[in-house]
């Protein structure tokens, strides 16, 4: 009995991974064959990008601020408080800016995609769309995927910028250190490999957020309860995958450009 359950579960996992792989691949490839719904791409860019600016801005600012607070306390023990700017900028740009923005956007948008598409599935709106001769994957999923990839890239830049500003605010107003020195250290510490690492990650994270959110939405079964389950699964899976992908990308990037 236990073996049967294990067998069924393993098959289910393999089937889900296979379904997701096909779904995610098609959602990307649809851009290269007409029709391409550019207006939907712009609408989704507005919803995902502009709509997420405030949360990304606040989380970026306070993450940078707390990094400055924590690092100053540690660095002062070594008499190295002057490198706070370098520490904050490197941590934000290489790691935290992309990951935190990814997780914030996953919380806001993967859930919204899963619940919106899931509701459309359970009320037969997706079937209605197919019956009217429109491909829901092209119309609903592809614009969301590309909009999330594009907007997460810019949102990460915003988060990085405001993170460094947050660090500066703490350094100047709470730690009473020199602002020019902070920014000068932040700038000097940066290399191409750091910026490349920070800007490659959101491209992958955006793809994960949108493809997972839409996948769970489109596979919703079981009425309104099913919509709830899809929403939770979308947020949890995309957040975990972002952290896993972050590790893998960091490992590859460090192999390419060792520090």
């Amino acid at each position: 009995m236990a073996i049967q359950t294990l067998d069924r579960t393993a098959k289910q996992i393999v089937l889900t991974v296979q379904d997701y792989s096909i779904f995610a691949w098609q959602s990307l490839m649809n851009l290269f064959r007409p029709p391409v719904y550019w207006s939907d791409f712009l609408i989704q860019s507005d919803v995902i990008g502009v709509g997420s600016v405030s949360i990304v801005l606040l989380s970026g600012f306070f993450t940078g601020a707390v990094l400055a607070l924590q690092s100053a306390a540690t660095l002062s023990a070594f008499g190295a408080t002057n490198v706070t700017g370098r520490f904050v900028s490197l941590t934000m740009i290489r790691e935290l800016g992309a990951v935190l923005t990814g997780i914030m956007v996953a919380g806001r948008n993967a859930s919204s995609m899963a619940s919106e598409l899931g509701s459309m599935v359970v009320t037969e709106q997706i079937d209605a769309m197919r019956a009217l001769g429109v491909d829901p994957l092209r119309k609903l999923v592809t614009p969301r995927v590309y909009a999330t990839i594009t907007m997460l890239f810019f949102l990460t830049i915003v988060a990085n910028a405001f993170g460094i500003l947050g660090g500066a605010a703490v350094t100047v107003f709470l730690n009473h250190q020199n602002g020019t020195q902070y920014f000068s250290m932040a700038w000097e510490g940066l290399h191409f490999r750091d910026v490349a690492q920070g800007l490659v990650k959101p491209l992958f994270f955006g793809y994960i957020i949108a493809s997972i959110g839409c996948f769970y939405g489109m596979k919703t079964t079981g009425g309104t309860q099913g919509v709830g389950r899809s929403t939770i699964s979308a947020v949890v899976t995309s957040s975990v995958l972002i952290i896993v992908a972050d590790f893998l990308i960091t490992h590859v990037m460090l192999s390419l450009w060792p520090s």
Partner: protein
Amino acid sequence: MSLSLLTALEPLKDTLPVVEMRHVTISFEGPPVLSDISFRVAPGETRILLGPAGVGKSVLLKLINGLVKPDHGEVLLFGDEISTMPEEELFPIRARTGMVFQEGALFDSLTVRDNVGYQLIEEGKLTGEEIDAKVHESLRFVGLEETFSMFPDSLSGGMRRRVAIARALINQPELLLYDSPTGGLDPITSTNIISLIVKQRDVRSTPSLLVTHRLQDAFTMCTHRFDAGKDEMVPLPKGETDAKTTFMMLDEGRLIFDGSLHELLHSENPFVKEFLE
């Protein structure tokens, strides 16, 4: 027509059938929902699919335009075998059909105008003004022109079904599929909806397949015609029925009856008898 005659599937005299199912079976992780289903819908014909809830009536309707795929058997739509066709190739074929879903399935974030004109907007062949004119015409057909700028959530259940009918009709489909269009509605609204379906049948002669578990609606369709002069549905003379409206009945996933109203009323099948009683 008896079931043995049906399975023989003699070729129709006039033209190719609009829909043809050949020994179709489908299941969803369990016993078959539909088993060995075979039938045809001829041009101009209206077929009413009867059966209790949960016997696979809606699944059968979705099989017809390829929304679900059978495990075995063939589904021919406009002469094309669609059961093995990739989704990409199905979209243009589906666009030639009109489908009214059980609860209307209107896009709740779009206005009635955008819902009804959805197919035309997506095709991108007409200007905004031309689409508006067609939407008005379609809404006039179902008597809901005043809802043009409204959102679906501000409409009653009956109005939503009528808007769904307007959406299904706007592109002058070659086949109409109605999935329980009167389910959950009061008798007066149900009669209005049936009147619209009869109007479409008699005015435009569009072949259709209607799924229902309401005998009253089925009999009304068979015993009434649309009077264009009076712009209303009127009863046929006593004893007459619409020759092009025929019945099928499903029980436990199997097609147990296929024939005319007269044959239905005189069927010896115990389930048919019980259902009619």
